[in-house]
């Protein structure tokens, strides 16, 4: 009965994601008009990268927030599940931050005429964030006793999260060319763009939930399988 419910939920989530992905493409490329490039007042088709870029960044931040929360829970309760959630969420966060670091320079090229600018605080802090969580995963793979390693990783996961607000606020703190996110301010996105943006954000968040759920299930099943093999 539980299996049946779980399978039904799986199919529902996968179906929602599949059609959501298609609808997101439709909203971005058909429904929302292209923005106007401020440098030459021409339609700016590369701006469509924005939807994917910001949604990836948001999902990466969410994933790292969950790493920090799960790490706090692990340190308080020594829960194996919390430790696994932190690990899986860090992997997903790195995947989405990688997407952000790929889509960002593609968008930048059409606006600044170059892929990367080392004087841009958001770019540099985002790259540091990526390296921090790569370090987190390396720490988790390092040799040593499991529990001790998990505690180190949890502390590291909490400290690394401090870079997330820095990435977000860096464009407000320093003079930067990277545009801040102006969704609700006057002169921000028009209503059709807002719809495409928030729907894509929702689909990315759902994708994160499904990836986390799957990743956690795989690790818990592996744990159970190993325990059973030991019994045999």
């Amino acid at each position: 009965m539980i299996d049946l419910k779980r399978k039904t939920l799986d199919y529902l989530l996968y179906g929602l994601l599949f059609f959501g992905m298609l609808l997101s493409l439709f909203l971005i490329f058909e429904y929302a008009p292209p923005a106007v490039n401020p440098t030459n007042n021409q339609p700016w088709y590369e701006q469509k990268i924005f939807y994917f870029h910001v949604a990836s960044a948001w999902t990466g931040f969410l994933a790292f927030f969950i790493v920090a929360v799960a790490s706090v829970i692990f340190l308080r309760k020594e829960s194996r599940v919390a430790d696994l959630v932190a690990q899986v969420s860090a992997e997903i966060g790195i995947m989405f931050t990688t997407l952000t670091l790929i889509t960002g320079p593609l968008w930048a090229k059409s606006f600044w005429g170059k892929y990367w600018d080392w004087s841009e605080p958001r770019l540099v802090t985002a790259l540091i964030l990526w390296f921090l969580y790569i370090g987190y995963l390396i720490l988790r793979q390092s040799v040593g006793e499991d529990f001790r390693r998990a505690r180190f990783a949890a502390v590291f996961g909490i400290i690394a999260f401090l870079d997330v607000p820095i990435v977000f606020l860096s464009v407000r703190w320093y003079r930067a060319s990277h545009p801040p996110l102006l969704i609700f301010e006057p002169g921000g996105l028009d209503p059709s763009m807002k719809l495409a943006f928030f729907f894509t954000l929702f689909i990315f968040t759902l994708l994160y939930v499904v990836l986390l759920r799957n990743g956690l299930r795989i690790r818990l099943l592996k744990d159970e399988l190993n325990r059973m093999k030991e019994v045999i």
Partner: protein
Amino acid sequence: MRTVLVAYAIVWAVIFAYLVAQYMRISKLEREIQNIRDVLSRKEN
């Protein structure tokens, strides 16, 4: 614009393929666990 659309579609396709691969891995692990459970219950009987 078409280039951006194709890039989007490819990324979505890769992500969805990864999700399907994850689902297949979960099903395989569940089957393995069920097989071991069956063996253990037969042994007990």
